[in-house]
C-alpha cells in the first residue's frame, strides 16, 4: 500500500468528519474541500453552518478550499470538478474521501467526477449501519451538535443538542417507530462537529440563534472561538 495525499469533501458535519477520522489512520489528509451553496435547496451539500468549516479546518490545522456553488444540480457538479482540480494543483492530492453512507445519487456523482479527473474515491462509511455510526461518534469522543431538523418527529428540542447516548437512544426510538433515517443523510437532520480526536483545538459556541417553523428549523451558530485542548 502506498501512502496517498487525499482531499476530504467536507461539510463540517458528523459524516465527513468521521470519514476523515478513518482515512487519517491510513493516508495523509492534505486539505479539506468545501462547497458553499448559494441557495438552501442544495441537492448535495449541507448548509446551516457551512461558514464554520473554515474554523473547523483551523481546529484540525488543515488548509481548506472553499468554492461557492449555485446549488443547482449540474452546475454543482462543475463546481465540484473545479474544486477538486484546484486541490490537485495546490496540494497534489491523488484521491478524495467522502462521508457518503447510502445516497447512490451523491456517491455516483462524486465517483464520476473522480473518474474524470483520475482520482481515487474513498467512501469509508459506505452502507454502514446508521445506529452503529452514531454510537461510534459518541464512543470516539466526537462532540457533534444538531444544526438543523426537517423531519417529523424531530422537533425544536433537538436543535443545538450534543449527540450523546441519550440522543442516540431517542433517535433509535424514532427510527423504530417512524422509520426515520437516523444518519440524516436525506437532510432529516444536519450536524456540526465542534470537537473530534483529529481536532487540535476545540470549538466553543459563543453566540447562536434557533429558528423553528412548521416541522423544520436550524441552530444557527453566530459566534465561536477556538480553544486549546
Amino acid at each position, binding site marked *: *500500500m502506498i501512502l496517498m495525499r487525499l482531499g476530504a469533501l467536507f461539510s463540517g458535519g458528523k459524516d465527513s468528519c468521521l470519514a476523515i477520522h478513518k482515512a487519517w489512520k491510513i493516508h495523509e489528509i492534505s486539505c479539506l474541500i468545501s462547497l458553499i451553496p448559494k441557495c438552501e435547496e442544495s441537492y448535495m451539500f449541507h448548509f446551516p453552518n457551512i461558514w464554520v468549516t473554515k474554523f473547523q479546518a483551523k481546529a484540525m490545522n488543515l488548509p481548506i478550499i472553499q468554492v461557492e456553488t449555485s446549488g443547482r444540480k449540474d452546475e454543482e457538479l462543475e463546481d465540484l470538478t473545479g474544486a477538486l482540480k484546484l486541490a490537485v494543483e495546490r496540494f497534489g492530492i491523488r484521491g478524495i474521501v467522502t462521508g457518503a453512507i447510502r445516497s447512490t445519487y451523491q456517491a*455516483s456523482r462524486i465517483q464520476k467526477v473522480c473518474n474524470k479527473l483520475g482520482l481515487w474515491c474513498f467512501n469509508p462509511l459506505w452502507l454502514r449501519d446508521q445506529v452503529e455510526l452514531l454510537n461510534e461518534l459518541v464512543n470516539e469522543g466526537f462532540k457533534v451538535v444538531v444544526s438543523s431538523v426537517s423531519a417529523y418527529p424531530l422537533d425544536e428540542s433537538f436543535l443545538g443538542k450534543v449527540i450523546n447516548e441519550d440522543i442516540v437512544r431517542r433517535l433509535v426510538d424514532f427510527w423504530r417507530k417512524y422509520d426515520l433515517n437516523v444518519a440524516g443523510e436525506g437532510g432529516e437532520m444536519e450536524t456540526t462537529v465542534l470537537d473530534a480526536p483529529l481536532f487540535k483545538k476545540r470549538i466553543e459556541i459563543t453566540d447562536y440563534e434557533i429558528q423553528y417553523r412548521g416541522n423544520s428549523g436550524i441552530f444557527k451558530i453566530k459566534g465561536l472561538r477556538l480553544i486549546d485542548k
Partner: protein
Amino acid sequence: MRLLLVNLCSDPLSELEFVRPLEQNLRRHKIDLCTKHYTKITCEDVKSSNKVIICGAALKDTEFLKDLSWFTSLNESGKPILGIGSGSQAIMKFFNEELIDEMRIGMFKVTLVKENKLTDRKSFYAYFLTKKIVKTAIFFEILAKIEEAACMVKHKHKEIYGCFFHPEVMNPEIILNFILKAS
C-alpha cells in the same frame, strides 16, 4: 455453511467500502464467514469453505487483475463462486472472456434474460460502479442485461456467477439467494 469472502482491495481504506458492508450484512444473517485478501488465500481456506464471494474494489484499483493465479485454486475447488463488481471482472478475465471499456456509474435498470437461482425479478434497478462490461461470452451464459450489455452471467458448466453491479447496495437478496440456493 462457511463462506469465504475474498478481498480484492489494494488499499485498506477501500476495504471499508467494498468488504465491510458485505461482512456486516452476512453477519446479520448469521453466516459463518472468513475474509481473506486475495494474495493470502490458502488451500485450507478454500477447503474449509462451502462457497466463495469475491468482493468489488475501487474504480482505480486494478492490481488484482495483474496476476490471476490466485483464482486457480478457487476455480479448481468446484465450489459455488459469486463475483461482485471487480470480482466479476476478475472471473471473466481468468476465463479469457472479452471485456470492453464501458463506464457505468450509478443506478440503472437491469432486465432478466434467463431464469436463474439468484433472482426471479424480471427487471430491477441496481447500483453500478464499473468501467468494464462483457460484450459477448463463450464460457458464460448471460442472465441479465443492462440495455444490450451483459451485467449478470453464469458459467455454462459451473456454479460460477458474476454480477457487474453491486447487489449489496440495492439487491441484497441476490447475495442471500446465492448463499441459500447455489450448489
